């Protein structure tokens, strides 16, 4: 008998798949639809203090093996978004509130506010690659990551995940910093910084010029990052980046992920991707005589098999 249930930082998930932040999650009813489609948990859009319209269009470029996006953290602000979180909670699965801010104080306060609004945990977006003054501009420094996590942990009771950027010389250093700061878990990776130029227009396509690359193209980067983080810290890791199939998820889990997130594939496959990936994980477990997901976590590391 195979069991898909996992426990990550005190969150009980019916399966190891979560909706990644930024996709299908500006409204409560869309998140609810994803929960109904089978996701084990939902991560909200990254929410800030004030309403923010985001970058001018074009905000996405469709590529052969993924998506390049520069949405620019659009969100209605925590005050209005609280009702969306409540709606999403009707799905009966944990809702993780993703937050971003321009200062440590702002991020910590948002961590408190999303939990107050009903989120079961917090994901600190320390890694958005295309919003000036936010995300990766703050989250590339281990010192900043440590002190943000410390302050956020002090302000909120909920588990705190730090979502890290791969656009750094050492993501393991960032993970260690998050652990020192008291983070309960790590989420890796956010998108890779990228650009697409239209050769007819002779200019970058995205309104913001620079965007974040996601989808199958980034999976090897994500798997490598999770592998390195798993060796660097003791806290759980949630793997994200290019997961489309159950085998992709297993790859991340073998690298050391306790759970995974899916974003771009919700676009390419539709919300049905969650139940599809779960079915494929189950089949893999049956074929390989695994009873629990936990048994697979980190098996790709020497000495772990």
């Amino acid at each position, binding site marked *: 008998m195979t069991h898909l249930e996992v426990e990550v930082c005190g969150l009980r998930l019916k399966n190891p798949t979560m909706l990644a932040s*930024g*996709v*299908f*999650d*500006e*409204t409560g*009813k*869309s998140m*609810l*639809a994803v929960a109904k489609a089978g996701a084990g948990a939902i991560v909200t*859009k990254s929410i800030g203090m004030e*309403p*923010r*319209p*985001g970058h*001018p*269009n*074009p*905000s*996405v470029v*469709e590529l052969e093996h993924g*998506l390049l*996006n520069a*949405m620019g953290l*659009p*969100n*209605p*602000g925590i005050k*209005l*978004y609280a009702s969306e979180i409540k709606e999403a909670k009707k799905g009966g699965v944990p809702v993780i509130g993703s937050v971003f801010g321009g200062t440590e104080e702002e991020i910590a306060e948002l961590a408190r506010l999303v939990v107050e609004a009903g989120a079961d945990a917090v994901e600190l977006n320390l890694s958005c690659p295309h919003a000036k003054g936010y995300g990766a501009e703050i989250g590339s420094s281990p010192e900043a990551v440590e002190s943000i996590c410390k302050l956020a942990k002090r302000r909120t009771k909920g588990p705190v995940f730090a979502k890290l950027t791969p656009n750094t010389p050492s993501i393991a250093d960032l993970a260690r910093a998050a652990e020192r700061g008291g983070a309960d878990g790590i989420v890796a990776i956010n998108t890779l910084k990228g650009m697409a130029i*239209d050769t*007819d*227009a002779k*200019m970058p*396509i995205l*309104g913001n010029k620079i965007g974040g690359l996601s989808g199958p193209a980034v999976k090897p980067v994500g798997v490598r990052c999770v592998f390195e983080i798993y060796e660097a810290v003791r806290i759980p890791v949630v793997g994200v980046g290019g997961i489309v199939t159950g085998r992709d998820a297993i790859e991340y889990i073998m690298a050391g992920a306790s759970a995974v997130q899916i974003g*771009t594939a*919700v*676009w390419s496959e539709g919300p049905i991707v969650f139940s599809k990936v779960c079915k494929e994980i189950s089949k893999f477990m049956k074929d390989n005589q695994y009873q629990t997901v936990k048994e697979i976590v980190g098996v790709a590391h020497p000495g772990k098999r």
Partner: protein
Amino acid sequence: MLKIKEHTSETPSTKTIRFYEWLDAVPGQFVMVWVPGVDEFPMSVSYSGNSFGITYQIVGDGTRALSEKKPGERIGIRGPYGRGFSLSGKRLLFVAGGLGMAPIAPLIDQAASRGCSIDLVIGARSAKELLFERRVTRAGAKVHISTDDGTKGFKGFASDLADSVVGNRRLSHIFTCGPEKMIVKVMDIATRKRIPMQASLERMMKCGIGVCDSCAIDGRHVCRDGPVFSLKELKSFDDLGRTKLDQAGRKVPI
């Protein structure tokens, strides 16, 4: 990027761009139009197939910049996207308000080629703003006109005119596109007279492909699940005719 073949005025406020390329779009599907350095926005395909085209209204900086593009210049096009109309039945009523004629006109072309009986109610601000009137008359549609200012046809709402056009006739399907308040009234007619119906909705879109949730309506996405929805789907939308999302994802009244 595609080269503009023709750029013509349809009415004082609307223009059509035709391209050299072939695009197979189901009526109701849209393309994302990129004016480099300015903006990118969704637009209905008003001519499908050979030398496909889009028809638009100048409403902001992006469409104003688009309106200045000349034949030979290029603009970015991606798509077609979304779910278009699905033609069914033989006795059809079309109700189009303003720019809502852009996706309805190619649908009427399709219906005409299938030998359907076609009644069309067009609503516009004034006689001058009636879009594609000649095109659909030539296609064989029986055209019923309403204008806000009474400069032609019935003075008042297209939906009220549609109600009297339906009367006690047994129609097999209603297809509509236009302001959401009009669509809600047409839904009333369809429900009362038990006529199947499809409507194309318009919402602020960013990605156009079902990622960003900007065009969400009750957990569905206008860009990917729509823009065309059936009467049953439309009835399940609490937000319809009431609220929509702005750029920041705030719910604002329609």
